[in-house]
């Protein structure tokens, strides 16, 4: 490769560093939109975000005023933080000053509207995943080649003749487009063009880096190809490749975009301090009883839920119904796998975005349950045939008119029912689906290694006995498991909603935006394997013979917990399972009643019916609050939080410091689930503080594009964040409190220090204040130690609140 081309390739890679990644709708991953800037301190990164994306990085004045007036920002904390920032005016005056400053209009992106429109059009056509009836030609040859073949016929490009003799290879084409730009300015120019449509560019960044995406395999797109097409489109429109104001903006970026520190920073810090102080004080009060709290003796059943903040509410209510013990564990249950459901060719990646899938698990029909499978197949085939018929009638030019005439009344009635009686419709649907056996009742999971089924480019099918034992051991060691109940249930989660492109954002984030049931079923099957139990016993984990492992799925929109088809149960186990089913119904009623208090229009007395209605209503913009409210990540035994109402705001990961002398389990939790928690928290944070830029605006005006994402109206950038309705009660009233995550670890402070010290990614996140860390040290009388940027620890004295930031610090 000629030197200038290899240098250009590196410049593209460097320029793309500022971008985060954006996943498609089917596997919506909550990620920090400023992930590309996370190596910077938080304040500098949001300042760069202001320059690059014109996005606000701190809560707006209305959000701060609301928090101030409702007492969510404590006056003493605010005074402390204002003082630290050198601000002396009264809070009310400062809010007024911010309000005045906010009236200054934010400059729009410079005039490349036609260019953005043209690129969004071609990208949407290229990345389409089955929404379009007519596909863009030449897609299998890659984006640049496909674009090169058709763009020269685009009549909206005034100088489209310039596209006739472009090089065949994208890198050469990009070099040609940059031929009038000094090499020293390449990176700035490329960054400018990526930031012009950051949603699309982030999507391309994700897709070009994903090794397992079937669409990328079939229709490859690279950042180089996109930039080559974009820069040549600029030339074809008659726009300069490097606009005159480009380098002014670049200078702004190096200056952090503003001359004054943000006035909202101390307010955010005070808001965070208020919440954190309340939480930590509550936990400190509970800490002395950690070793005595919990179920006395052997629990009847143990349920492992995802760490998701929504699990906290139902766990609390379930524990109140009987002798149950619950745990929090990453919802992919430690299994880095792809799942292929019965009757589907799709390989669903079912593990967090920072973990590469390493195994394939298939759902295959069991030979012993053929009759049930046949019944299922018959109903499914009937449904699919009907859908195909309707689609072909709608899309056939000749048949479409007659079809509309003949079926209009029927569709009108269906629309009326869906609109006026969604709850009734759901009941009917549930009654209907009871006739159709679900795959878990007649399918086995392909746990056994099958060398013959391995594909050259694919992952190995199944798990060896060693691998099964490894994942089972990891689960019990990470959670600090000490005794086994007769029934253990791994409970994944998913959300059921209607007409909701963001459905996967409500599914399990640890399963890459998919339901967690398949992983729960896999781990349950692994733990029921006698060979695994033998292995575990040899490693000091004795699972009693009377313990059985089951799987379940928690539907977060309705709080139903549905057990999957169980293995053979003893009479005693069956009795416990029957009682558990009843208690789960009670827990559901209480959980939905608690949620009804914050779901507008819902009444606690009718909470179950209301959640059913929301899950089925195609006009419902807020089927549930998702992870809104998230603000803390607690790594501790359940005994620390049991009985406390944490308002569904805390991720809970089980951890027992006594069984983890070397800190291996804690290190895994902090470098894995905690990092994913930070991604989720930052997604909610930025989507709230600037919904138009970092979120995705109102659902009302969104349209799905290419089955990969949404845009506002009928074109423009791919919207990467959460919709307004997922975060706000209405246009003016926030529901989600945009606070950065506080990690609370119940473990010796020295152990936590060592883990932070040897993991650069963690240290960077804490040092740069993307999240905060506080330890409650059981070896020091549950003393609270707060990590300070730079690697020291602040230890509050017994002084009154407001003085804790002046405490002496310990060297790391």
């Amino acid at each position, binding site marked *: 490769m000629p030197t200038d081309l*290899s240098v250009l390739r*590196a410049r593209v*890679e460097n320029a793309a*560093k500022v971008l985060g990644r954006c996943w498609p709708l089917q596997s919506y991953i909550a990620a920090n939109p400023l992930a590309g800037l996370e190596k910077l301190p938080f304040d500098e990164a949001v300042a760069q975000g202001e320059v690059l994306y014109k996005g606000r990085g701190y809560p707006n004045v209305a959000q701060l005023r609301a928090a101030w007036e409702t007492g969510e920002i404590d006056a003493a904390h605010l005074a402390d933080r204002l003082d630290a920032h050198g601000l002396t005016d009264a809070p009310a005056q400062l809010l007024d000053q911010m309000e005045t400053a906010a009236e200054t209009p934010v400059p729009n992106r410079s005039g490349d509207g036609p260019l953005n429109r043209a690129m969004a059009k071609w990208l949407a056509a290229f990345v389409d995943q089955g929404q379009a009836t007519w596909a863009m030609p030449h897609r299998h040859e890659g984006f*640049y080649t496909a674009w090169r073949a058709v763009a020269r016929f685009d009549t909206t490009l005034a100088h489209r003749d310039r596209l006739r003799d472009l090089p065949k*290879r994208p890198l050469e084409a990009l070099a040609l487009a940059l031929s009038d730009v000094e090499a020293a300015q390449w990176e700035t120019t490329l960054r400018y063009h990526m930031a012009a449509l950051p949603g699309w560019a982030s999507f391309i960044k994700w897709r070009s880096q994903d090794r397992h995406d079937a669409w990328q395999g079939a229709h490859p797109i690279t950042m180089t190809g996109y930039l080559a097409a974009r820069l040549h489109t600029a030339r074809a429109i008659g726009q300069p490749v490097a606009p005159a104001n480009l380098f002014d903006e670049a200078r702004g970026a190096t200056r952090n975009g503003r001359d004054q520190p943000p006035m909202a920073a101390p307010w955010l810090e005070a808001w965070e301090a208020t919440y954190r102080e309340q939480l930590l004080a509550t936990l400190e009060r509970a800490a002395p009883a950690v070793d005595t709290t919990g179920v006395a003796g052997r629990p009847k059943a143990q349920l492992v839920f995802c760490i998701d903040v929504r699990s906290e509410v139902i766990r609390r209510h379930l524990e109140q119904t009987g002798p149950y013990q619950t745990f929090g564990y990453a919802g992919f249950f430690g299994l880095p796998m792809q799942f292929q459901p019965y009757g589907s060719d799709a390989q669903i990646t079912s593990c967090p975005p920072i*973990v590469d899938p390493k195994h394939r698990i298939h759902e295959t029909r069991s030979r012993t349950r053929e009759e049930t499978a046949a019944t299922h197949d018959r109903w499914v085939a009937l449904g699919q045939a009907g859908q195909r018929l309707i689609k072909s009638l709608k899309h056939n030019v000749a048949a479409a008119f007659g079809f509309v005439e003949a079926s209009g009344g029927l569709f009108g009635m269906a629309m009326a029912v869906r609109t006026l009686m969604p709850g009734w419709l759901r009941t009917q649907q549930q009654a209907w689906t009871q006739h159709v056996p679900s795959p878990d009742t007649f399918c086995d999971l392909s746990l056994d290694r099958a060398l013959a089924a391995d594909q050259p480019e694919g992952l190995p099918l199944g798990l060896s006995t060693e691998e099964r034992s490894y994942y089972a051991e990891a689960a019990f060691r990470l959670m600090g498991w000490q005794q086994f109940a007769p029934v253990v249930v791994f409970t994944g989660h998913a959300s059921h909603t209607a007409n909701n492109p963001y459905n996967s954002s409500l599914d399990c984030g640890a399963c890459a935006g998919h339901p967690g049931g398949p992983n729960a079923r896999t781990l349950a099957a692994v733990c029921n394997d006698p060979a695994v139990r033998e292995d575990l016993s040899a490693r000091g984990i004795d699972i009693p013979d009377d313990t059985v492992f089951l799987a379940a799925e928690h539907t977060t929109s309705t709080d139903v917990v549905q057990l999957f088809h169980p293995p053979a149960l003893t009479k005693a186990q069956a009795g416990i399972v029957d009682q558990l089913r009843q208690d789960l119904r009670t827990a559901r009623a209480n959980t939905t009643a608690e949620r009804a208090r914050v779901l507008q229009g819902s009444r606690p007395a009718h909470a179950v019916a209301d959640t059913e209605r929301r899950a089925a209503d195609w006009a419902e913009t807020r089927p549930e609050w998702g992870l809104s409210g998230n603000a803390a990540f607690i790594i501790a035994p359940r005994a620390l939080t049991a009985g406390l109402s944490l308002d569904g705001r805390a991720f809970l990961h089980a951890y027992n410091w006594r069984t983890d002398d070397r800190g291996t389990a804690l290190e895994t939790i902090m470098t894995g689930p905690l990092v994913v928690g930070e991604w989720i928290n930052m997604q909610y944070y930025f989507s709230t503080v600037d919904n138009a830029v970092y979120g995705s605006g109102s659902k009302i005006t969104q349209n799905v594009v290419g089955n990969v994402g949404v845009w506002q109206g009928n074109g423009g950038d791919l919207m990467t964040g959460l919709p307004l309705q997922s975060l706000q009660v209405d246009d003016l009233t926030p529901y989600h409190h945009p606070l950065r995550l506080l990690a609370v670890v119940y473990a010796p402070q020295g152990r936590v220090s060592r883990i932070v010290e040897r993991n650069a*990614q963690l240290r960077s996140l804490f040092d740069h204040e993307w999240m905060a860390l506080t330890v409650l040290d059981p070896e020091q009388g549950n003393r609270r130690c707060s990590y300070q940027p730079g690697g020291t620890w602040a230890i509050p004295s017994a002084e009154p609140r407001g003085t804790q930031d002046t405490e002496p610090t310990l060297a790391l």
Partner: protein
Amino acid sequence: MSDTSHSPEHTLHPLKKIEIIVKGKRERFVQELLDRSGVSGYTIHRNVAGRGASGFHEGHLLFNDEASLVMFFAVSDQSKIQAIINGLSPLFESSSGVMFVSDTQVVRLKKFLGAEGPQHGGA
């Protein structure tokens, strides 16, 4: 040419060796660069631990494949190694990572000279 052997079967031929250590998320970029550079092969060590300018990086993390470091080895002639250096140098202006180039010797020269010309394709 430094021939330290008396037997023609064991003649040692001088070549260059490059060692590259980057963050896991840059693995694909470096791998593609090596693929396009014309070297005949390379070795990848994943989950490498060590300390650099940004502190210590733990090697093998159970639930995080992105945070660890990855190390590449490649051996080839001066021109191909130089092409790799040219393609990597801009990356290290803003990303953490290191590369080392050293003299080395091989017995089977043909095995290491690889393709005649560098490749450059893409979508």
